[in-house]
């Protein structure tokens, strides 16, 4: 079982939380006037509903028994009028309520999306895409349902409950109190199951989210699954996950549906009490049969709002569980943010400086250890070193995807933490290890580097990285539709597009992270030429494994174990005969062998 399942399961210790409730209801605040209007509509409808029995009674008692035909027609007309009013109110109410609900959902999705957009890389690292998505879709829906439907219902049901209680008390307060004495029993029952229900719903949601994560992984990793013929084991795992969800779900439902029989029973006991006590009062001559009959009618209605409350309550618990997960995202502070007094980065000249920079992705970890480096504007810098030495981390810090734990990173003398992210990053061009192609067209994907770029500029960028030729060879040229995982394109083609995208951004600082590795030597040579032209006037950081690429760099940093162990030009480092010399010669040994073999 993966860690995420455990991670989700740990969240189950979550209690009813007034703060969360208030926060959920907060989403209704902007819609308050509309809700008040809706409430008044509902009150009208409730009033008509309560009034109808009286009207019917009048029709029967006065008009029919009194054989008064004109009165009958008069009352029927009123009846019809009230019904029309009710119809219009209901129509308006349906519209208002659903509109509010949809708008609240829209607003929540928007807020959540905007927020996770601002979160830094540490949030995304190791968090499966499926789980993030489940929160923006499923959990938001659960909250929306509660906030939308339940709140209005709560109001109207409370009102009719109050009405019934008042009527019952005014009819016979002793009998009324006798009936109400059963309420604590109901509350006791609710109190006992509440905790279990709440935890249960949390576990159900967690189990559902594991299922989503599994599905997402299955879909994205299908090739590997099929290659290793793991379908059966994968199915077994899925089976386990669904079974677990079903067990959790049925566990909660078993408790929850107990509610109806309990209400039923309490209702019956109440009726029994009224019959018994009512008969005593009747024998004492203080109560009429008609009064007992009427009282019983009201007692019947008394339980209706109570059972409505129960379904509202369970919806609330379900929403509470979801809100925990949604608010957890909303409350995650982005670690890399603009300082309050951050200034706009002026146009970058390209002087980069690391001063005693230390960094670890987790607490206590040390990926970089007091790294210091200086790069002059326009220099091309190559970072060299074994995997895991910290090359990517240097790039991550330079792009300010993370902030250093100690020391500072400065560009043109500005500490990166003192300038706004947007003004800084928009002057960077970055090609990362994993090239991501968005669904759209090739043109749109290149345009991602500079929105609204002219077609000529896009073509120029594509030509510069030698992507133009293969693009023109495709059926629709630049309008060729690309898909999310870029499957219409080969890995190399994807990278060429990523290059074009980065170049179009016309960055002051260019960062290439191992991106050249998937392009064949021939194409790469062409790119190298193009790059040399384009790098002019820009500072560039390159992580490339091919030493031939690195040789052309102005400055080489050899990194090992989080430290810079050598730096200088290729020439200097070769003469030094240190680590770089070692790396360089191992690659070339084979070439030398081949030449001599021929």
């Amino acid at each position, binding site marked *: 079982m993966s860690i995420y399942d455990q991670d989700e399961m740990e969240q189950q210790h979550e209690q009813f939380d007034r703060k969360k409730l208030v926060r959920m209801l907060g989403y209704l605040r902007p819609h308050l006037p509309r809700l008040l209007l809706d409430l008044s509509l509902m009150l009208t409808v409730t009033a008509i509903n309560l009034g109808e029995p009286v009207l*019917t009674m009048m029709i029967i008692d006065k*008009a*029919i028994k009194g*054989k008064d035909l004109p009165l009958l027609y008069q009352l*029927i007309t009123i009846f019809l009028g009230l*019904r029309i009013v009710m119809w219009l109110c*209901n129509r308006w109410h*349906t*519209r208002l309520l659903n509109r509010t609900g949809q708008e609240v959902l829209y607003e929540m999705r928007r807020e959540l*999306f905007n927020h996770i*957009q601002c979160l830094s*890389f540490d949030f*995304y690292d190791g968090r499966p*895409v499926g789980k993030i*998505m489940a929160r923006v*879709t*499923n959990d938001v829906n659960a909250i929306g349902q509660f906030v939308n439907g339940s709140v209005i219902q709560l109001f109207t049901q409370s009102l009719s409950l109050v009405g019934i209680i008042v009527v019952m008390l005014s009819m016979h307060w002793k009998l009324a109190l006798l009936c109400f004495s059963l309420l604590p029993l109901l509350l006791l029952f609710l109190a006992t199951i509440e905790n279990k229900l709440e935890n249960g719903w949390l576990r159900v949601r967690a189990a559902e989210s594991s299922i*989503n994560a599994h*599905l997402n992984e299955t879909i994205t*990793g*299908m090739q*590997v699954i*099929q*290659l290793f*013929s793991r379908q059966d084991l994968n*199915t077994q795992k*899925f089976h386990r996950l669904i079974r677990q969800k079903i067990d959790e779900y049925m566990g909660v439902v078993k408790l929850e*549906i107990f509610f109806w*029989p309990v209400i039923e029973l309490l209702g*019956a006991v109440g009726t*029994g*009490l009224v*019959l*018994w006590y009512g*008969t005593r009062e009747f*024998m004492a001559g203080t109560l009429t*049969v008609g009064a*007992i009959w009427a009282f019983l009618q009201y007692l019947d209605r008394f339980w209706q709002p109570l059972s409505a409350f129960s379904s509202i309550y369970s919806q609330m618990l379900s929403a509470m569980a979801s809100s925990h997960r949604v608010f957890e995202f909303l409350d995650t502070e982005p670690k890399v943010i603009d300082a309050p007094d951050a200034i706009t980065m002026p146009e970058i000249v390209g002087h980069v400086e690391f001063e005693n920079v230390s960094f670890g992705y987790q607490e206590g970890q040390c990926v970089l250890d007091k790294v210091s480096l200086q790069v002059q504007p326009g220099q091309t810098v190559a970072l060299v070193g074994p*995997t*895991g030495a910290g090359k990517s981390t240097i790039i991550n810090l330079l792009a300010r995807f993370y902030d250093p734990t100690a020391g500072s990173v400065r560009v043109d003398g500005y500490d990166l933490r003192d300038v706004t992210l947007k003004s800084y990053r928009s002057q960077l061009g970055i090609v990362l290890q*994993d090239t991501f192609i*968005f*669904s759209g067209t090739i043109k749109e994907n290149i345009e991602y580097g500079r*929105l609204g770029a002219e077609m000529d500029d896009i073509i120029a960028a594509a030509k510069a990285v030698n992507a133009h030729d*293969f693009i023109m060879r495709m059926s629709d040229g630049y309008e060729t539709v690309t*898909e*999310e*995982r870029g499957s219409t394109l080969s*890995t*190399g083609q994807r990278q060429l597009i990523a290059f074009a995208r980065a170049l179009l951004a016309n960055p002051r600082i260019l960062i290439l992270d191992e991106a050249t590795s998937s*392009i064949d*030597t021939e194409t790469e040579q062409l790119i190298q030429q193009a790059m040399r032209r384009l790098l002019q006037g820009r500072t560039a950081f390159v992580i490339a*494994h*091919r030493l031939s690429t690195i*040789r*052309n760099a102005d400055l080489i940093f050899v990194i090992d174990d989080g430290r810079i162990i050598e730096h200088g*030009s290729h*020439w200097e480092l070769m003469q030094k005969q240190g680590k770089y010399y070692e790396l360089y010669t191992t690659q070339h040994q084979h070439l030398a062998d081949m*030449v001599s073999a*021929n």
Partner: protein
Amino acid sequence: MATARRLVKYITPHWLKALLMLLGLLGFMGLEMVPPLLLREAVDNAIPNQSMPLVLALAGGYIAVALLRGGFSYLQWYCSESLGQSISYDLQMSLHNHLQLLHDEYFRKQKTGDIMSRVTGDMQSVTHVLSWGLMLFTQNCLTLIGALIVLLRLNWRLTLISLAAFPVMFVIVMRYDKVIRPMWQQVRQEMAKLTTVLQENVSGVRTVKAFAREEYEINKFDQQNRVYLKTNLKRVTAESNALPLIDFISGLSIIVLLAVGGRQVILGSLTLGTLVAFQSYIWKLIWPVRSMGWLINSLEQALAAAPRLFAILDTPSQICDQPHSFPAPAFRGQIDFVDVSFQFDDGAHPVLHDVSFSIAPGQIVAIIGGTGSGKSTLVGLIPRFFDPTAGTIYIDGQDIRQFTLESLRKQIGMVLQDTFLFSASIRDNIAYGRPDATDAEIIRAAKMAQAHEFISQLEQGYDTPIGERGVGLSGGQKQRVALARALLMDPAILILDEATSSVDSHTENLIQAALDEVMVGRTSIIIAKRLSTIQRADLVLVLEEGAIVEAGHPAELLNQDGTFQRIYRSQMADPTAEANTARGEGR
């Protein structure tokens, strides 16, 4: 209709649960008739006669009935929920398992977010209706029929007059059904689009951030979010036009009854008692009719969602075991491509055409070629990710389509260009192809892939969990884990599709040395760029635009004036480059 019939099939295996649910329902509804009788008895006889024992007996009976009804309602709800879960289990399992059968090309075309929204959201609304909706529907029908029979027997003329408005209502219901169906379909589609935007954004977050495009993404999401909102609001308008109207018209029958019946009572052709009884039954009739409106709503939701599920289930797998396929014997490793061509379904260009070559058992083959020349597709044909559009691939002289997929793939160790690791421990990832592998075997494979060293340095070693896309590891580390995973399979045929592209050259050399040992006795096909790797090959295939333009021993090819020589030269063009750097140094 076909959709509905197909949906019902999902209930049949669980007929017992459905039956029990129905039983609970009948019991619950049947007993509903009893309490009023008990009450009437109490009010008409027991209380006026001041008979306390009878009152107490009636009260007791009342409680007993309540207990029974509680039991029935529990049964009904439990079975309905359980039925829903069972159906969702079946649906999800069949979707999941069918997806696993589908061929590679399907996943290249279909967006992950779209498939996800089908197997989660759409699936839920289908199950919801099949369990809960069905129960409600049955309950409504039963009440409707029951009340109608009683009414007709009481006074058929009055019944017909009272229900005169019902045909109008049915017309409205039908029309509403017609209007709301495409609306629900649209809502589903827009939701899928929204999910896709979200999915892409989350998957591509690094690119988004690298280009500081958060605002653009926020706008993109907002746009789709708004479209979704609007689509929903349109549906809401249709709903609010129809549902309260249905309410109103069904309520009309009460008014008509009071007017017509009241007049008859006054004129003496009807008793007051009948009128009162009539009225209470009409009420019972109205409720189910009213709820039909929103029952149709959720039914349409499900009917809109169901085809999206069936679309997955109905996609035939293009790559599957053939009727007479048999398990492959242990391969010696002879591979022959005979006039193999390949073209994607939608592709305008053939990716490969007329590719023929032979590989002897134990040979090392290097495939080189430019970007998009078809290298990955060519090697993908061997484990049958795709089947050739024309031509045949033989292993040990047998057409590979004759083997069962599993037996074929089990003997092929492949490291793909895009490294995909699962969110599990490193150990589980390496043992992916052989879950029963011992620790010693896993460590041996990791050592060969030069992964052991960095794994041991991790705090939790082989138990270190890695993220969905192995985010915690660098590209080179991921590739080495994937290599170990393939090596552990001890495959007869080893295919490395740029398996070490993200590994630094020092480590690559170590891997290469280990591979030299591993490759003995195996047929190995390597897509590589580095000459150091190509040099080791027995056979080099140079691919250009889907065709083999050069083939032969590297030493041979070096003496031919062709692509290979050109690539060789470009890599060997180092001395001049060194001179350039030396000059640039002075800056």
